[in-house]
């Protein structure tokens, strides 16, 4: 009887593990950079040669390793990050399996150079396909450099699957973008041959990091998100609805300084955008979750791109509601400003600020909508006539002015709002009617002279199918045989309301569909959207001062005053800052 079960030599076991951990240069870079971040590096440099196929070098200024540790680090399951099984729950650092270094070393020619604080001299180790070839002294600054040469030189089958240098470089750059967003406080440099792909100095917070990556303008169109539910905390940035476009989007989720993928959370964020963006728009989303130890399992897969939550539904609802709340504020409104300040994230109290990723700037209170008289004088430097306040007097409510019978201008504390009267009224009616459905139905005014309307057979069928929902919206309608219906009572959303026209247009839209009503979740929402759109005060309608005031007040009593139901803005802001820039103050 010969023995058929063998204990694999380490080198073979490492190569098998490498199959899981190391797929391509990007995964090598990710593992090495995560190790650097775990070592509290303030600056990480990544250099690729030949798309990483020829060489990958990751250098950090972290705490480094002593010689013994350095040698140990190349052993399987050697890790400084975990000691016993219980530690697996609530692990805050990136690596903890002790697999990455030996795995990478087993399929490459690796050079590790490191020096720990307090050590006189650093350690250099050369590894060839997993076998330590050389150990010696090196002179170097504190930190660690790992150079991975000829990835898969001894695994030709794997090497075959590598793509062109350009494609591999792109994958590295994507991975680094995620890590850089998750760790704004760390400086990153990524070079590919002689090209600098990313050069990111240490940033104060996520907004600054976004600005470094995609420019100030992109950062300025993001709105801060904050949320908390039980042991979960959420912070991040989402794109202003008026800037969201269809097609490509940037969406990044992080947790404990590590990027992860979870399509369900992005979908939850998208639900938070409902009715504020057109149905195909794909807003940018950057969210960081923080969870109490134990409520998440971060060790799902060696590449650690996924996170398993104890209670996924509550995470999703937190994401949805926090995004929704972010869209309630003035920052989410469209703007005329060419230059906007970066959004500010509130500081997390007691945060460690280390690998915490989204570290906060100064805490910032919500911009006030209304002029508060006593604050009017602050920040007035550089203006002529300091002692006479300019337009900002001791107003309590903003001055309102209808222009072109279509827009309402409002003076607010930080500038001007231009409100589209139709879009604003759409938002108002939509929310009011949805609320009315919950409360048993909207207001319905009985008519002295009922309206008899002829509709197409398809429309008549819709009227019949929807009669209950229409009644909830205030339309008491009954068939009169054939293609005729009678409206006996109608809603009365404003004095210029044309019930017949609105009803006809609604039935046309509800029968034949439109982009708007297709985005609705149910019949009530369909009817409410169509009603809002067809019944709102039209552009071109002159309004009295009282009506303008009422429209303004009711708009700001809605949940999402800055967005209509089509995904267009109701309000466009012009800040005092922009005015000052324009006039060269």
């Amino acid at each position, binding site marked *: 009887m010969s023995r058929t079960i063998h204990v694999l030599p380490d080198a073979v076991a490492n190569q098998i593990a490498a199959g899981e951990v190391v797929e391509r240069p990007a995964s090598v870079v990710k593992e090495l950079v995560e190790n650097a971040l775990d070592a509290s590096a303030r600056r990480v440099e990544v250099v690729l040669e030949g798309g990483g196929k020829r060489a990958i070098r990751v250098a950090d200024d972290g705490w480094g390793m002593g010689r013994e540790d350095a040698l140990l680090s190349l052993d399987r399951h050697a890790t400084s990050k975990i000691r016993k099984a219980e530690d697996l729950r609530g692990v805050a650092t990136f690596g903890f399996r002790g697999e990455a270094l030996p795995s990478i070393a087993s399929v490459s020619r690796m050079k590790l150079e490191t020096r720990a604080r307090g050590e006189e001299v650093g350690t250099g180790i050369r590894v060839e396909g997993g076998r330590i070839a050389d150990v010696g002294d090196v002179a170097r600054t504190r930190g660690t450099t790992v150079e991975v040469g000829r990835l898969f030189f001894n695994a030709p089958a794997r090497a075959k699957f590598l793509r062109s240098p350009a494609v591999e470089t792109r994958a590295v750059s994507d991975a680094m973008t995620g890590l850089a967003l998750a760790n704004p406080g760390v400086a990153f440099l990524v070079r590919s041959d002689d090209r600098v792909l990313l050069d990111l100095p240490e940033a104060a917070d996520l907004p600054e990091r976004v600005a470094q990556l995609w420019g100030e303008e992109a950062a300025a169109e993001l709105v801060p998100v904050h949320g908390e539910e039980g042991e979960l905390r959420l912070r991040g940035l989402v794109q202003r609805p008026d800037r969201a476009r269809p097609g490509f989007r940037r969406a990044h989720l992080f947790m404990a300084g590590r990027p992860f993928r979870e399509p369900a959370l992005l979908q939850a964020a998208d639900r938070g955008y409902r009715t504020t963006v057109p149905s195909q728009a794909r807003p940018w989303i950057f969210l960081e979750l923080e969870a109490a130890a134990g409520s998440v399992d971060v060790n799902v897969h060696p590449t650690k791109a996924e996170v398993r939550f104890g209670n996924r539904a509550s995470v999703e609802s937190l994401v949805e509601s926090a995004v929704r709340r972010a869209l309630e504020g003035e920052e989410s409104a469209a703007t005329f400003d060419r230059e906007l300040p970066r959004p500010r994230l509130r500081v997390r109290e007691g945060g460690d600020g280390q690998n915490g990723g989204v570290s906060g700037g100064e805490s910032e209170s919500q911009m006030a909508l209304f002029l508060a008289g006593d604050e009017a004088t602050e920040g007035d430097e550089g203006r002529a006539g300091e002692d006479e306040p300019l337009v900002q007097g001791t107003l309590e409510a903003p001055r309102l002015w209808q222009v072109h019978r279509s827009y309402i201008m409002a003076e607010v504390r930080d500038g001007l709002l231009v409100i589209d009267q139709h879009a604003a009224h759409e938002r108002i009616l939509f929310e*009011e009617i949805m*609320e009315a459905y919950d*409360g*048993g*139905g909207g*207001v*319905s*005014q*009985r*008519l*002295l*002279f009922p309206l008899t309307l002829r509709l197409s057979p398809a429309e008549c069928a819709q009227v019949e199918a929807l009669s209950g929902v229409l009644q909830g919206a*205030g339309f*008491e309608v009954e068939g009169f045989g054939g293609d005729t219906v009678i409206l006996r*009572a109608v809603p*009365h*959303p*404003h*004095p*210029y*309301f*044309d*019930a*017949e*026209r609105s009803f006809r247009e609604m039935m046309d839209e509800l029968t034949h569909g439109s982009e708007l009503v297709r985005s609705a979740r149910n019949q009530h929402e369909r009817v409410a959207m169509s009603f809002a759109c067809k019944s709102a005060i039209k552009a071109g309608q002159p309004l009295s001062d009282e009506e303008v005031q*009422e429209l303004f*007040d*009711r708009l700001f*009593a809605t949940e999402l005053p800055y967005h209509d139901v089509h995904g267009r803005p109701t309000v466009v802001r012009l800040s005092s800052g922009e005015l000052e820039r324009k006039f060269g103050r």
Partner: protein
Amino acid sequence: MNFTITRKNLHQGLAAVSASIPTKTTLPVLSNILLEATDGQVRISGTDLDVGVRTRTPAEVGQEGVLTAPGKKLQEIARELPDEPVQVTSQGDQIELRCGRSRFKLNGLPADDFPNLPEVSFEEGWNAPGQVLLSLVQHTAFAVSTEESRPILNGVLWELKDGQMRMVATNGHRLAKMTVPAGSSAQGGAELIVPPAALQQVQRLFEKENEVHVGRDANHLGFRSGNTEVYTRLIEGTYPNYEQVIPKDNDKWAVVDRESFASAVRRMAVVASDQTHRIRIGFHQGAMRLTVLTPDLGEGEDEIEIQYEGEPLEIGFNAAYLLEVLRYMDTEEVKMGFKAPERAATIEPVRPDGEEGGVEYLCLVMPLRLLD
């Protein structure tokens, strides 16, 4: 053209006309008034194309002629002039005013550009005492519709038939109707739909004490009283059959003190939604209970004593509609009639027997749906 006129006559004439001038217009000549000097008098006219006003005032005419001049400016000048005769002269399209040591020159426009006011013959018209006409207008015109979709309802229906004169206005949610004896001067029948803007001018310009002459042609109407005339186009179309919607079978009646009812409604309205003004009224034996519940705002409750017999009734109303109607009821008590919560309610003044003088006034208010 030149004439001399007292400052007072000039100012009064201009004040009468300038209120008919549109404040904003795309047709510049409409912001002007037309001055026509003829034998011993000056005619001053202004129009916004829908409604025109013309007034005559005595003047010493040196040379006859016509001219247009900016109406509001002329009026402001006339108001500020010293109380001395004003000498008005035309120089081309310019007008010159001299009064004491003041002198003004204003640019006008060629008189040919000024639209003609409709030529309405007063010969075949009828007369109405100012007081009667003004009362009809006051009690009904408020109820016209402002919606553009049914232009007919934007006007006040004026009916003459069977020796009665009647005005009706409605926006489809509430209706006001007043009928008075027509008197001998108004024979024959007429059914006119009059824009309320013209009736406002009538209210503004005409005195209760004076007789008003009314003349018409196919699509215009003219009012004349004293030296002043108001012209308007008529709204074309057929007025809806209002008789049909006036309930004949209301069987629940309440008699309510108008003042305390109105103030209770006003109190409720504070807490009603700005948009719908919805309040709820419960009629019970001897008492009316008003309630309001507006989500996000709050609630209110009130009770007043009334005379009411019959089944208790709960009905919803637009408070603004009730208040409007109550404002024009000029009696201490009003009578309200109902059939059911989804049917029209009637409101009419309660006059002691024999004091009606043949005057009938009735308002309808359609309810709002109540939620349970």
